[in-house]
């Protein structure tokens, strides 16, 4: 089986699993995603290639991100490519002797707070703040 077909089947399986987990019928999803029910069925069985735009509409209809429908390895590679470690964290990691993977996990943990509604101001974390954060999660990181 070619890599392309394998990828297509994997996407289709993911779409169907998320759809059924959410108790959505194929008709409901095809209506929301503005594609025909027959086409959705073909996509779910890996018989049809799906364009980026339609994949986005399907993801939106399912209430998930496009990266949830594509291979996890691709999504992780994309995330890795966009990784920027702030200077303050690099310095804190050096002082603390942290491994690269622990440093990345600290960064991911901090960034999992993606939005805060506040009337106050917020600035980039200092080296000390990164160290304090590490202190709070040290035991979990080392598990």
């Amino acid at each position: 089986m070619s890599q392309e077909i394998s990828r297509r089947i994997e996407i289709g399986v993911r779409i169907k699993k998320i759809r059924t987990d959410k108790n959505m019928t194929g008709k409901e999803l095809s209506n929301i995603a503005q594609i025909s029910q027959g086409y959705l069925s073909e996509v779910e069985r890996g018989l049809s290639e799906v364009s980026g735009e339609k994949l986005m509409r399907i993801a939106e209809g399912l209430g998930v991100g496009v990266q949830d429908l594509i291979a996890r390895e691709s999504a992780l590679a994309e995330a890795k490519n966009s990784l920027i470690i702030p200077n303050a964290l690099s310095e804190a990691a050096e002082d603390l002797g942290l491994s690269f993977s622990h440093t990345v996990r600290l960064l991911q943990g901090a960034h999992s707070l993606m939005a805060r509604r506040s009337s106050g101001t917020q600035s980039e974390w200092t080296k000390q703040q990164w160290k304090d954060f590490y202190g709070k999660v040290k035991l979990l990181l080392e598990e």
Partner: protein
Amino acid sequence: MRNANSRTLETSLRLDAIVNHLGIAKHWEDNGHMEVDVISACRDKVSSLLTKIEPKGEILAQVIATHFQVQFEEVRTNFDIDKLEEVYLYGKKELGFAQVREEIASPSVDALLFQRINATSSDRDRWVAILNLTITEDRAYWNKFHELAHRLAEPPQPVLPFKRQKVNDRDEVERLIDLVAGSIAFHPSLFSPHVSPLQKMPLSFEIVEMVRQAYAPTASLLSVTNAIVSAWPRPALAFVASMQPKRSGDGTRLDLRVQPQSRNKLAVEANLILRPNMRVPINSAVYETFRTGISSLVTESTNIWTFSTGGSIPIHPITLAGISLGERVYGIMSLS
């Protein structure tokens, strides 16, 4: 919105990510157009969820949250934070939740939105919105929709070209998110049926309270007032008045002054307008409401709403409603 040239790089990238995520055309030189498109695209994302639900705001929030995998968590006491840490930090190994205690301790923080690192694509709590209710419950309804608007408008973290930072509500993106939140929280297809039967009556706070109780009892009076003003079929605007100094003065003399809150399209067309920080006339019913605490619903002319520099706002016969809330008065002006 600010001019596109004055944006920071991060704001531009976040706005860029939003329009890409929503699949809309960019209008960087026409912010108003972009806002309309973003709001419309977010409304479209929830429209299929509205067909079978009871027209109530709290139900709407829960339905959208469930569909988009957002779990609401309310924090009132330290015990609630202990529980969050137990479930998410120690239970699900979500390191980000180590920040919750310190964040919630800040009285300026209303809400936090986490995108869980260890969640699977089908977890119902893939995003966790934490509402800070330790001081007041007033903003809970609005903040739920604000966090949902983030979820609707912004792409998940891994596909952002530039990692998001924690932001405050003066940020341009947050203002856009607020517009989305307002349009979803009081979605016309659910909200209008509550307003339509009352449209022949004068616009009063009695109407506002009736609609609030029927549609979203947990919403603040001000947010419902603004929503009704927007939906009203005649020119209308809402304001809050409190004792404030003149902007150009020495700050020692306080007068009852206006902060405009909302104004519908018909009011814009009819030139019904209040200027920020203008004085409430002492012979206006709103001033009397502030003085006595007794709610008002009267007809008066805007010709008494004058400026210290001379002249008045455009003259109209108006229906004026006022209600006292502590040190402030809420007011609604509408044309018959």
